């Protein structure tokens, strides 16, 4: 496993990392380099890469435990079972056709949003909070589904990412009929962790 923290500083991620005592690499991605390469729009996002370096399960949502199942509606066993079976060689991952079908691809607007984030983050890192704010807001307007921007920049805007502004944003988003999390659909062809 390789974990990538999309946090504004290593110090934000540190307490979580130290509590986990990980035996695997945990990397700090303050500029959202990995998010840009993989078109990650929220956390947690998981993907599987095989021994040859190929994506065999594209962007999916999975939690390690059911702590937040009552909020997310997602059962940890769904992914954990499939993961275990894949790692142990009992069940294949997705076919190339399935990966292609489910791989989200970025649009020009998505990439413009990421450029705004990149500029905002650079400005923020140099103390230009007001200037950064403009670009974070612009990024969120360009890619309203990209919560690595809309929520992920809140700590750089002196907003609590778990607080009322986030809840307001989430309410408006979900109220507009959009999902906050986009897990892969559970079909038998996707090596689901559910009973098969």
């Amino acid at each position, binding site marked *: *496993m390789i974990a*990538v923290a999309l946090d504004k500083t290593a110090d934000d991620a540190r307490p979580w990392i130290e509590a986990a005592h990980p035996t695997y690499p945990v990397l700090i991605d303050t500029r959202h380099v*990995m998010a840009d390469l993989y078109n990650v729009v929220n956390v947690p996002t998981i993907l599987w890469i095989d021994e040859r*370096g190929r*994506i065999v399960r594209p962007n999916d949502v999975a939690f390690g435990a059911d702590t937040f199942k009552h909020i997310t509606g997602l059962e940890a066993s769904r992914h954990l079972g499939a993961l275990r079976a*894949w790692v142990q060689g009992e069940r294949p991952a997705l076919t190339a056709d399935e990966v292609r079908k489910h791989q989200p691809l970025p649009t020009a607007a998505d990439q413009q949003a990421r450029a*705004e984030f990149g*500029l905002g983050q650079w400005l923020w890192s140099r103390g230009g909070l007001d200037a950064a704010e403009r670009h974070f807001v612009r990024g969120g307007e360009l890619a309203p589904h990209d919560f690595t921007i809309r929520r992920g920049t809140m700590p750089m805007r002196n907003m609590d990412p778990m607080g009322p502004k986030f809840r307001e944003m989430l309410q408006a988003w979900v109220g507009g009929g959009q999902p906050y999390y986009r897990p892969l659909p559970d079909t038998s062809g996707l090596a689901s962790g559910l009973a098969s």
Partner: protein
Amino acid sequence: MSTFTVIDGERAVEVEARIEGERVLLDPSAVKDALGWEYHDGQLCSDMMCIPIDDAAGLLRDGAIELGGLARALDRPLALDVAERAACLGASARERAEALASQIAPDFTLPDLDGTPHALSSYRGKKILLVAWASW
């Protein structure tokens, strides 16, 4: 002319620039040295490739290279802050989409908590569960 910062991928480079309204005019030799692109004979060339330029007027102005025109010619998004004298040249959607469509996991190098860099490609040969997460 005074300096302007262009963030190109993971590098931030300072270039000499003249600003006219929302237009950022860069010295062509600065564009070549800092960003790796040179314009001549209707083409914009890097070490690796040349792009034909149909609209030279959109790219060049009084012998200077206009940053917005350069971004458009490269099909890359540009986030611009004239007041802060800074811009971020992002990754092209087409390039990112083509890479993901190939299903080959894009490589990256990022530091751990100790600052030690780790390249994804250095873990080739094992199955990898890649997890993006955050404290938010």
